[in-house]
């Protein structure tokens, strides 16, 4: 975090993130207001309608986030760095494979992507050889298969490989 005397380190501006977040909250609030009034936010024949409670919740949320938005906008103090460039790179280096992992589960099941995710992390972030990564990944995947499918009888997503193996 940079002090008030130093120039801001290169990276994402905190104020920008603050404004974007508050706007997103306000937008969600407005969507909530719209949907609540659509289904009825008043008094029905048999009590409060479905939108009654969410309407007030959404109203408070919109108001509070607009307040945050305006005060972030008008804040005259020096801006801070939300994330420096190297930090952004580190965060993305985890977030990108994690996203690929979650998307891959949809068609490849959980176990194969899990083994690959662990191998990727070890080889690309941990500086291990791919062989060590793949071995560790595969053993953790097999361990979780035994734990969940066989021991706890909890079915997890399965893909072509598991089908081919007869599960």
């Amino acid at each position, binding site marked *: 975090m940079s002090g008030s005397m130093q120039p801001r380190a290169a990276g994402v501006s*905190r104020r920008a*993130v603050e404004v974007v*977040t*508050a706007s997103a*909250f306000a937008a*969600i*609030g407005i*969507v*909530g207001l719209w*949907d*609540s009034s659509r*289904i009825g936010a008043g*008094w*029905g024949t048999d*009590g*409060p*309608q*479905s939108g009654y*409670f*969410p309407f007030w*919740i*959404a109203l*408070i*949320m919109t108001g*509070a*986030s607009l307040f*945050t938005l305006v*005060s972030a906008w008008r804040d005259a103090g020096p801006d801070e760095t*939300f*994330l420096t460039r190297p*930090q952004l790179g*580190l*965060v993305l*280096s*985890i*977030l990108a494979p*994690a996203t690929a*992992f*979650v998307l891959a*589960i*949809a068609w490849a099941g*959980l176990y194969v992507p*899990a083994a690959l*995710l*662990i191998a*990727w*992390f*070890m080889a690309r*972030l*941990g500086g291990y050889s791919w062989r060590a990564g793949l071995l*560790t*990944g595969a053993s*953790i995947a097999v361990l*979780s298969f035994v734990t*969940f499918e066989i021991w*706890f009888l*909890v*079915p*997890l*997503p399965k893909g072509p490989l598991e089908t081919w193996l007869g599960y």
Partner: protein
Amino acid sequence: MEQLGLLFQGFAVALEPQNFVLMVIGIVLGVVIGVLPGLGGANGVAILLPLTFSLPPVSAVILLSCIYWGALFGGAITSILFNIPGEPWSVATTFDGYPMAQQGRAAEALTAAFTSSFVGAFFAIVLITFVAPAVAGFALKFGPPEFFAVMFLAFASFVGMSRTAPMKTLTAMMLGFLLAAVGMDTVTGQLRMTFGSVELMRGFDFLVLVIGLFGISEILLSIEEGLAFRGKQARITLSTVLRTWRELPRYWAISLRSSLIGCWMGITPAGATPASFMSYGVAKKMSRHGADFGKGRIEGVIAPETAAHAAGTSALLPMLALGVPGSPTAAVLLGGLMMWGLQPGPMLFVEQKDFVWGLIASMYMGNLVGLAIVLACVPAFAAILRIPFAVVASTILVVCAIGAYTVHNAWFDILLMLVFGVVGYVLKKLDYPLAPMVLALVLGDRTEQAFRQSLLMSQGDVAIFWANPLVATIMAAGIALLVWPLANWAWGQIGALARPKITETP
């Protein structure tokens, strides 16, 4: 005393072989969860909750609550040895704990931390044993307006007592309520905010969101600091333990004060984290050696650890007696109660005696067993942090994904978990508090239900919320807490006008 008799019955339940084994497993798992970055009490319990459906409720709650105690203990290990708080409530423990470790007094610091944790927890459990039944008995008279007022008070105290911007607290809380409302309205059968999506019809499950908000976001936060953990070694010998224990009674005043602070902050849902900071601050201010704090004073370890455990434990008091949890982990446990088919609230003490007293008895034993386990096994637990981050982080990602999937067997939930991981990461960095959001998520439906039933009773007249002295008092306390930040701000403005020269605020 009726409580003592019930408590002994509870001990009989907690000492059944299966429950005792689950207790030990829970503590060990909890310490591991507390040590690992990215896994904490709330999401650790959330991940394991779906696996407990085959157990009887009392065994399940013993297992999960022991994970909570274990996580509370585990946070201290990483704070003292690695200067990395494993949990937010152990941040204050790093201030003096890590300097002590650097001076080669790690074993002493750890012993003091574990023992004070135990003292704080014990104080809180005694409080629960004797106060919770009384509160529950009193609450049996509550109707829907009173319950709504209690929830209003709980949420208002977040706004009034948190150290973050009140508007951000309010926003985060309302997001929790709004997300809880998504899906089928159980009263009218109307679909709310689903926008035609089949996946959204199920609503947002708090377990999935907790795993994302607390688990994934924590991994993203810890990667910012870099990849390697460098820590101090420690092995606790019996002689160190005995020597430290001989010293500890000298600090009884700090322990008592920190326990009181912790219990107060735990029952009102301010939580363990502010309790530990507040207790550290008070200890520093009241000590004759205040200037030495931060350089390795043992009081600086005792104060936050006692308060954090007292707060973490006493958070279960309002959860058991009123059905209003005092911390995110207590909120997840409350969600578990509902999933096991128990109705949270004061009736629990009447209808589920074995469950309640088994849980309370297991708290005594769990903390005692926990103290023994952490004292004996510190080197083993500390070794976990020597596993490379690349392996730990990726394995935690996989475990979180499994946890999110098992809630409803839905792939969409894994995606939701990832999205909320990023949301949680951004919100944490912008100082939006996550605890009120999680509490609102869990309590959303019950709050709305109490609100609706009250309005039905009065035919839509909101005056029902101050119709009798009891409900009016609770509501007034809530409103006072809500306007507290505003009054504080106005006071500051008046003060600034009166003394225009002084611009520095303490």
